[in-house]
C-alpha cells in the first residue's frame, strides 16, 4: 500500500491550456525514497508542488487524483486539504536563501508548525526545535534559534530547513532540488544528512532533481520525465543496470564521469529526442481523440 499515489495527473496553463503534466502516475510507499528526474521544464517540480498544494496560480489541475494516505486531496475542500497536507507532508525547498523569512528569527520559523498544526505549547516546541537542530548537526543550536536567517550561511540554512521539514514528523517530504543551490562540498553533507534523517524517521521522500548522481545515492526508485510525461519508472538498481527507455539510457550516458575529467560531454542524441517527442504527440492525439469520440 503506497502512502502517496498519483493517478493520471494532468496539469495545464490556465489561460492557454498548454499541458505541463501529461497523465503522470506514480506511487511512493511509506518510508520509500522516490526520485523524479528530467531536464529543466520536464515538470518535476510541478509534481511536488501539486502534491503540496502550492501550484502557481497560472497552473490548473485538469485531470487526475493525488491520494495521500488513501485520501484524494483534490476532492477535498481547500481548507481541509491544507490541514491534511500540513499534517502529513512538508517541503525541503531548493533555495535556502529565500526559504526562510528574513525578518523573523529561526526559532519561531521552526516551531510555528508544531504550535499551529500539532497544537503543542511554545516551550515543548522549542525543546523539540533544539533537539532537531542537534540532529542536523548545527553548532550551538540555542544561539541559532535566536538568530536571523541573514546571520547564517547557506549550508546552515539548508540544515535548518531540513530540521524544520522533519519537525512535525510528516509521513511524506518533498525535496525540491535541495542541493542545487549549494556548493559541491556542502552538497554531499546535505545529501547524507537528508538520507540519514529519512532513514531514522521512516519518512517517504519525493526527491526532485536533475542530477542522476544524486538520485543514485539516495533513491530507491525513480521516474524519468520528459515534457510532463513519465517515460520510465524503475527500481534504482534495475535502472542503472539496464534502463528500459532509450531516453533514460541516453540520459545515463550523458552524465559526466569523474573518472574521465577530460572527456567531452555527450548530449542526448537528436534521434532519441525526436522519438520521445513523437511518443508525446501520439499521447496528446490519443487524449484529444478520446475526447471527441
Amino acid at each position, binding site marked *: 500500500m503506497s502512502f502517496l499515489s498519483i493517478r493520471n495527473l494532468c496539469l495545464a496553463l490556465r489561460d492557454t491550456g498548454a499541458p505541463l503534466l501529461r497523465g503522470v502516475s506514480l506511487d511512493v510507499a511509506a518510508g520509500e525514497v522516490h526520485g523524479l528526474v528530467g531536464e529543466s521544464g520536464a515538470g518535476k517540480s510541478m509534481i511536488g508542488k501539486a502534491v503540496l498544494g502550492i501550484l502557481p496560480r497560472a497552473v490548473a489541475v485538469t485531470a487526475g487524483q493525488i491520494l495521500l494516505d488513501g485520501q484524494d486531496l483534490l476532492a477535498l475542500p481547500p481548507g481541509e486539504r491544507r490541514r491534511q497536507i500540513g499534517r502529513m507532508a512538508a517541503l525541503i525547498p531548493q533555495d535556502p536563501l529565500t526559504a526562510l*523569512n528574513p525578518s523573523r528569527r529561526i526559532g519561531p520559523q521552526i516551531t510555528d508548525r508544531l504550535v499551529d498544526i500539532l497544537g503543542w505549547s511554545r516551550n515543548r516546541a522549542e525543546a523539540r526545535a533544539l533537539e532537531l537542530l542537534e540532529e542536523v548537526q548545527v553548532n550551538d543550536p540555542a544561539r541559532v534559534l535566536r538568530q536571523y536567517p541573514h546571520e*547564517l*550561511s547557506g549550508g546552515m540554512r539548508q540544515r535548518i530547513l531540513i530540521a524544520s521539514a522533519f519537525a512535525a514528523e510528516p509521513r511524506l517530504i518533498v525535496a525540491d532540488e535541495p542541493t542545487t543551490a549549494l556548493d559541491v562540498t556542502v552538497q554531499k553533507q546535505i545529501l547524507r544528512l537528508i538520507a540519514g534523517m529519512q532513514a531514522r524517521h521512516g519518512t517517504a521522500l519525493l526527491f526532485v532533481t536533475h542530477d542522476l548522481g544524486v538520485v543514485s545515492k539516495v533513491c530507491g526508485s525513480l521516474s524519468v520525465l520528459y515534457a510532463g510525461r513519465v517515460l520510465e519508472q524503475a527500481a534504482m538498481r534495475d535502472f542503472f543496470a539496464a534502463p528500459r527507455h532509450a531516453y533514460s539510457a541516453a540520459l545515463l550516458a550523458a552524465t559526466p564521469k569523474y573518472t574521465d575529467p577530460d572527456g567531452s560531454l555527450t548530449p542526448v542524441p537528436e534521434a532519441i529526442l525526436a522519438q520521445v517527442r513523437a511518443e508525446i504527440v501520439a499521447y496528446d492525439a490519443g487524449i484529444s481523440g478520446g475526447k471527441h469520440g
Partner: protein
Amino acid sequence: MADLTDGRGMLRRKMGWRLRLSAGWLTLLVLAALAAPLIAPQDPLAQDLFLTRLPPFWMAGAEPGYWLGTDSLGRDVLSRILHGARLALVVALIAGSITCLVGGMLGLLAGFLRGWVDVVISRLIDIWMAFPPVLFSILLIAVIGPGVGSIILAIVIIDWTRFARVIRAEAMAQGAMDYVASAQIAGRGRMGTMLREILPNVLPTLVVLLTLEMGIAVIVEAILSFVNLSISTDDPTWGGMIAEGRLSVHQAWWVLVFPLVTLFLTVLAFSQLGEGLKDHFDPVLR
C-alpha cells in the same frame, strides 16, 4: 563565546549622521511645537503697527525680543513659525499615518491576494493617478470647506496611491519567495501569511514611505495655506507666512525666508529620517 569563523552574526551598524541630524531637527521641532505657547517670545497674533518690518536681531534697527524680525503688520516672525509648526506637525503625523495605513493595506492586499482584488485596486490606482494632485486637493477643500480635518482628508485621498503602488510591488515580490510557500504548506491561512510573513518584510519600505509622506504632507499643508485654503487666515501657518512674505520680499525678506528655510529643513529631515532608519534597521540589505 561567539563563532569566530562566521562574522555574519556580528554585523552591527552604527547610527549615521543622516539619522542623527534629521532626528535631531525633528525632535527639536516637535518640542518647540509642543511648548510653543511657553517659549514663543511674543503673541503670534498680536499686531503692532509701530513695530512693522523689524529686521532680525543681527541687523541694524532690530528690537530685542523680536529675534527674527516682524512682518508688515508688526507680528513676530519667530513666534509665528513656532506656532505654525504645530499645524505642520499635526498634519504630517496624522495625515502621514492614515495615508500609510490605507495605502499600505490596499497595496498589501492587491500584491499578495492578486486575482480580482488586484485588478480592482490596480485600476483604481491608475485612475486616481491621472488626477493632478494639487488641483484635486484645492478642489476638494473648496467643496468640503477648510479646516485641519479637511487638509488631512485631502492628503489621504490624494496620496494613498503612493503607498499602494510600492507596497503592492513589494508584496508581490515577497509572495513569490519560498518561505511563503512553506508557510502555506504548514497550514497557515492567507490572511495569517499576509500579516505574519509578508508584512514584516515590507515594513522597512513602509517606514521610508511614511517619513517621505510626512514631508509631503508638510508641503501640501504649506501649499494649501499659501493659497489660503487651510485654516482660518489669522492662525499662523508656514504657507500663509510665505504667501504674505512674498508680497513684501523687497522690503522685508526675512518674513519670506525664515518660514521657507524651516519648511525646507523639515521636509528634508523627514525624507532623510526615512533613509537613515532604513539603513539602520533593515537587517538584510535585500
